[in-house]
């Protein structure tokens, strides 16, 4: 038997036994489960367990333990693994740093590759879109319609339009992400207004492509990697010194892949950029010149991808920034840091679970008496807006980038 035949014979047996050898990278992820002492704190803190009960969603520990202990049984987790919103609470509360969100991604990747029949069909649709368009959503067909939609949004918010610019050798690459590019265009525009206000030499991408997070979350690692490499090339070609984004998911994911693929530049969320690079002093004086001074009671919602996947310090920044804005009073919701239900692509196929996760959040928001929720993530904004609207709430939702842009002094 030839070497190749021998190898193929082995693979055939392994396939029959559902043994798909872990690569070294995967082994590092799975290895973190070794530290699990079964304490159950992840289950006690998991927003999905709280929302739908342990029987429906057996919780982070169960997923992690099931896969890692007996990899050939990975496929049996298909009935629970897609209910994880990827919020990262489990990893944060884990006394042993078990990286459960990554393990969830790893299991989904195995199912995607070897048992796609067990994956919710809505996720196949979502994957097809990413593969076809390189974006999380089907893009606007007609650029004029897109511009119209943008202008309507800007008009409603009282924001002016600054034309897109692609500049080689700029300091900052502003990366809006799929949501702000295709749907919540006001977020992208607001970011441009902010960067412009502080006279930042920034550029956009000639053509945006998704950071790959949704592909990772549904298990299509191949597409995720392709998108990441494509993005790296674009970033390198522009020769920027840093990347700034307004999306929480993009922040943590870009930070991850930039490190993994050695981009050599830092990735910031707009909040971090404002506090760490622009500085509190400049921000403060800008807000003082603002004409928008109506007193407003707001409450913050913390996006999981910022607090649990990047750093909790980001929301301290959010608080600091809001504290600088005249007339804004911040009231904290007791559920400010709990998942909005929008993560992990759960809402694509199990809307009831996503809504159940959101339920407590909404009650907590109402309890604050705030008239507006502010959150530094266009996806959380959309999820919150939709849910508050459904339950007939009068509370409004603003993406924080928009909220800030609105409160900068109007420029000629």
């Amino acid at each position, binding site marked *: 038997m030839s070497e190749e035949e021998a190898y193929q014979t082995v693979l055939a047996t392994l396939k029959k036994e559902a043994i798909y050898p872990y690569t070294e990278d995967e082994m590092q992820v799975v290895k973190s489960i070794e530290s699990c002492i079964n304490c159950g704190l992840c289950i006690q803190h998991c927003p999905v367990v709280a929302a739908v*009960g342990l029987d429906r969603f057996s919780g982070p520990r169960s997923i992690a333990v099931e896969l890692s202990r007996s990899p050939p049984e990975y496929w049996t987790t298909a009935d629970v693994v897609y209910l994880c919103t990827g919020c990262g609470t489990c990893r944060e509360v884990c006394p042993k740093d078990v990286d459960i969100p990554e393990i969830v991604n790893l299991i989904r990747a195995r199912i995607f590759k070897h048992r796609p029949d067990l994956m919710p069909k809505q996720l196949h649709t979502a994957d097809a879109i990413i593969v076809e368009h390189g974006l999380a959503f089907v893009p606007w067909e007609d650029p004029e319609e897109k511009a119209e939609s943008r202008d309507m949004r800007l008009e409603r918010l009282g924001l002016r339009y600054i034309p897109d610019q692609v500049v080689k050798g700029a300091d900052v690459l502003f990366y809006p992400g799929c949501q702000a590019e295709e749907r919540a265009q006001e977020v992208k525009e607001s970011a441009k207004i902010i960067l412009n206000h502080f006279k930042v030499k920034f550029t956009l991408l000639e053509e945006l492509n998704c950071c790959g997070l949704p592909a990772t979350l549904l298990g299509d690692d191949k597409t995720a990697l392709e998108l990441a490499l494509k993005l790296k090339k674009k970033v390198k070609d522009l020769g920027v010194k840093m990347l700034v984004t307004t999306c929480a998911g993009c922040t*943590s994911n870009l930070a991850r892949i930039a490190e993994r693929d050695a981009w050599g530049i830092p990735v910031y969320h707009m909040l971090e950029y404002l506090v760490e690079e622009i500085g509190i002093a400049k921000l403060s004086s800008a807000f003082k010149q603002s004409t928008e001074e109506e007193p407003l009671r707001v409450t913050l919602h913390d996006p999981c991808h910022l607090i*649990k996947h990047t750093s909790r310090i980001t929301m301290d920044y959010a608080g600091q920034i809001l504290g600088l804005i005249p007339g804004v009073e911040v009231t904290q919701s007791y559920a400010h840091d709990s998942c909005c239900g929008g993560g992990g692509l759960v809402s694509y196929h199990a809307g009831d679970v996503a809504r159940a996760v959101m339920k407590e959040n909404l009650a907590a928001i109402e309890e604050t008496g705030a008239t507006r929720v502010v959150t530094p993530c266009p996806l959380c904004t959309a999820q919150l807006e939709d849910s508050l609207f459904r339950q007939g709430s009068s509370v409004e939702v603003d993406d924080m980038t928009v909220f800030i842009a609105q409160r900068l002094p109007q420029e000629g």
Partner: protein
Amino acid sequence: MDLEADIVVIGGGMAGLVAGIRATEEGMKTVLLRKGQSATAYSSGAIDIIGYLPGGTVPLGSPVEGLQGIASMFPFHPYGLLGFTDATSDTVSKTIVEKVRTAVSWLKATLLGSSIPLFGDIDSNLDAVTVLGTVKPTCMIQETMWPGSLMLDADSVALFAGVRGFPVFNPRMAAQVFLEHQISNRLPPRKAGHHVLDLAPFGNNYNISSIEIARYLDNEDNLSVLAKTLKKQAERIGATHIALPPVLGFNRARENQLALQDLTGAHVFELLSFPPSVPGLRLQRGLETAFVNGGGTLLVGHHAKMESLESNIVKEVTAVGPRRNLKISTKAVVLATGKFIGGGITGTENGIRESVFDLMTVSESFRIATSITPQKLTNTIALTHMGHPLFGSGLSVDPQFRPITAEEVHAAENLYAAGSVLAGYNYPAEKSGLGVAIVTGYMASRNAVDYVKGVSA
């Protein structure tokens, strides 16, 4: 960005939070790093000060009695260290008792207005009942966990009520264990019955977790059904006391207890349970709220990283988050990273290590443990009143609670340690875990504050 602090507390369990709250009360700019959730959050929520003397088999009537014993027999026990003052030896035990009293009273006062007021004091130990039906001596419990006159009143009758599909608590076996124990000690109650309630927070009566029930009961509307069944069952056996697993709510436990008592006419209380327990989490949340409300900066999801302890002063701590590192400059550090669960202490076949600063570790009997195989610090018997010396290993500290080196000098002049990262006491056997955490957290914080004030002056 960099942060500035007067005091950085590493570790967000009981010891770290006590140290942090105290430091903010003293006007210190305090940053507390909490890596994961702490062992306090796992705990039963009962606060043990000292239940048995080291190696002892007789439950102590009061923590004071135990502290006096420690003062005379175990000077290097963390409680014993409280007695190292300038004063003469005959006041050692008094000094210790007073320091413990101060810390414990302070904690009680701190949590007074919270949703988890504490019951008990160091002048007597309470008999707390567990979900196994066993009884253990403890100092303070959340008011919802106090069994009232159950074990005093000769006519008392207990009803143990569990929840169908909630496997942590089997009321039938708990009632049996409890009654057998009480009878053999000739103590009330005269009768103990059991019942399984059908509470289905999500419609199914299987695979129910404590968090589900607690959250379910946090909703006022859900209490009445429970009350009705409990009343009926209590009347069936003439129960004067109703024991429930600790699931009466995260926010409304006390209100629910009082409401159930009103509705059933019996004394209702929560049993001590195992991790993950609702009362433990209530305690953790109560402490965190006190810290944050007092102006402390709580940085969750970040662990501390030190390159190494090169100088005699710790000036900076790096906080490592999921994707960001923060440098925190500081004037003093309180190390409250816990033992093996918290990760402050780790063990390999090559020895026992401290995980942040790589400080010297010692065994329970203060032998240097940096190269002792963990197995050597265990007994052949799994459960014994002697405990395993392994769980008494950790850091050796000076009377100011500063970790010391092999040369018996402090490792750094502004580095203090508190809680279960310390050596010299065996909390599972002694029942002294949260007590040592409170008192050493309190004292380490005081010393750190004094140090910072001294440097600043």
